[in-house]
């Protein structure tokens, strides 16, 4: 019955809207609380900020182009590093998972590198690649590549054995097996890897810029902090958080799209 279907859809939409409104209102209440606390005399304005001051500062920084310049610098480092991590990470992970010999040879090495805190390498990177773009990209690359490698490796090792047999029975070559069975079934793993890589990558951009940069959001935060511009520090933090949310939601959306073949039909 179509009327029942429409009613069901309306109810469903109301539910979604309701939960969304709830999460927004919690957020707004927290902001208001923060604003109110910051206006009492219990908090020293020199060491803290408030939502209204952060917004005002952001507007000023946006007008004079400072914000755009710093975001651009950070985005460049992140983009190059993350792109390289994907470009190298996927083939390396595939090779590790697909070929048993490669797996046995290199897995301990990968595990060792994966568990090391990469920021410890930053002084070395600065010596090798200088204080500019090179060292920062290197740090992003090395922190973002391992989640991609490890997840692609897991994807290859978890390919449904029965599906591989079907492929073989119909005469698939190794390359065809990889293309028609292993690669499509690796997509959920890849997306998980990308999500992890994203978190690690963002962290590294900021860390690298704080460590020894002269541009970028991380540098802006570090400089503002050392000159007691608390509002500017908060602007930087908010931007990083927003950036993370946007990319994470994007990947989440892609994940849902890809998962649709598992959950529903036509």
């Amino acid at each position, binding site marked *: 019955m179509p009327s029942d279907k429409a009613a069901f859809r309306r109810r469903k939409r109301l539910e979604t809207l309701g939960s969304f409104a709830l999460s927004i209102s919690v957020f707004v209440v927290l902001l208001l609380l923060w604003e109110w606390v910051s206006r009492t005399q219990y908090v020293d304005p020199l060491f803290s900020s408030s939502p209204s001051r952060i917004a005002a500062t952001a507007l000023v920084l946006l007008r004079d182009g400072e914000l755009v310049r710093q975001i651009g610098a950070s985005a460049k480092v992140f983009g190059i590093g993350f792109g390289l991590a994907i470009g190298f990470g996927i083939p390396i992970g595939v090779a590790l998972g697909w070929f048993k010999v490669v797996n046995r040879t290199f897995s301990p090495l990968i595990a060792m590198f994966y568990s090391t805190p990469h920021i410890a390498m930053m002084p070395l990177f600065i010596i090798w690649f200088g204080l500019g773009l090179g060292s920062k990209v290197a740090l992003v690359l090395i922190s973002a590549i391992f989640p991609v490698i490890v997840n692609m490796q897991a994807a290859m090792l978890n390919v449904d054995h029965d*599906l591989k*047999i*079907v492929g073989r*029975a*119909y005469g698939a070559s190794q390359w065809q097996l990889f293309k028609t069975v292993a690669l499509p079934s690796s997509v959920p793993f890849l997306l998980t890897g990308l999500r992890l890589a994203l978190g690690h990558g963002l962290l590294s951009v900021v860390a690298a810029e704080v460590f020894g940069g002269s541009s970028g959001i991380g540098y802006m935060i570090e400089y503002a902090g050392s000159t007691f511009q608390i509002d500017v520090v908060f602007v930087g933090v908010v931007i990083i958080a927003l950036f993370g949310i946007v990319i994470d939601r994007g990947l989440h959306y892609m994940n849902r799209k890809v998962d649709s*073949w*598992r959950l*529903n*039909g*036509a």
Partner: protein
Amino acid sequence: MQNGNVGLVDLSLGRFDRRTADLPPALPPLSPPPLSVPCGGKVSVALAGRTPVSIVSLPLLDVADVHIGYENPSSGEVTEAVRGVSLAIQAGEFVSIVGLSGCGKSSFLSAVAGLTPLTAGSISVDGCPIHGPGPERSVVFQKATLLPWRTVLDNITYGLELRGVPRKAARAQSAKVIDLVQLRGFERFHPSALSGGMQQRVNLARALVTEPRLLLLDEPFAALDAITRETMQNELLSIWEATRKAVLMVTHQIDEAVLLSDRVIVFSDRPARVVAEIRIDLPRPRTPQVKHSPRFAALTEQVWDLIHSSAGLKREVRYAI
């Protein structure tokens, strides 16, 4: 002389006779053996060295003294699954293998598909020894094993795609099969939206669309509920009556084997050997109604007895005490 392949055949049985074929070879022939070279240039020496008694085409599938063993990867011990099985299937024949669960019949089918290596013996299709899977054989697996990210149509054309058939031609070719297995209207569905029976139809369609000479069915309906299973058995019967393709089916459903087959081969318990071969002389074309005939009951009973006695579970045991 068809296909250029010749062999020794016991005409009374209508199948390849190993006993005759294993006689010591006569003197090497003076003139070179067959002009047309079968099997991609590899001439079978055993055939070339003999004087044929009668000349007819070889069986479609010829299995000669096949042994299969599995090596345990941790202990290195070899488990024997199949011991010395020989059988032959003619074109257009429906042959079933029955036996207890885990007796090695699935290993045997997998070997015929070219997916499991032999320890000894040989398997030939049209007189040519097989080395792995080939386009003249298709397998319908016990589990549907469809690619979950592909639609029904793209799953059906999978085998054709692997063989390099262009997408458009593959889709055109699958139209007939889709009607045959009654999947019309479901082409754009993903497997997860289909019931077990429907998934198994896709599995069957995927095997049929490549137009194999021999269809290999590995307990195709074992994973289905009883009602769906019966429906699918009846449909397979009508599909077979329409196509008359050579089929080798492994099953442990005895009534299924009797209903569908021309011959039922009984395997012993592991390691599998051929215990008996029963010709199912129910008239063709058959309909599901044949199950109500006394002959059907008698044949089913006969197969039961053979399986029981092969497993050492003689029916008389009940009364022996």
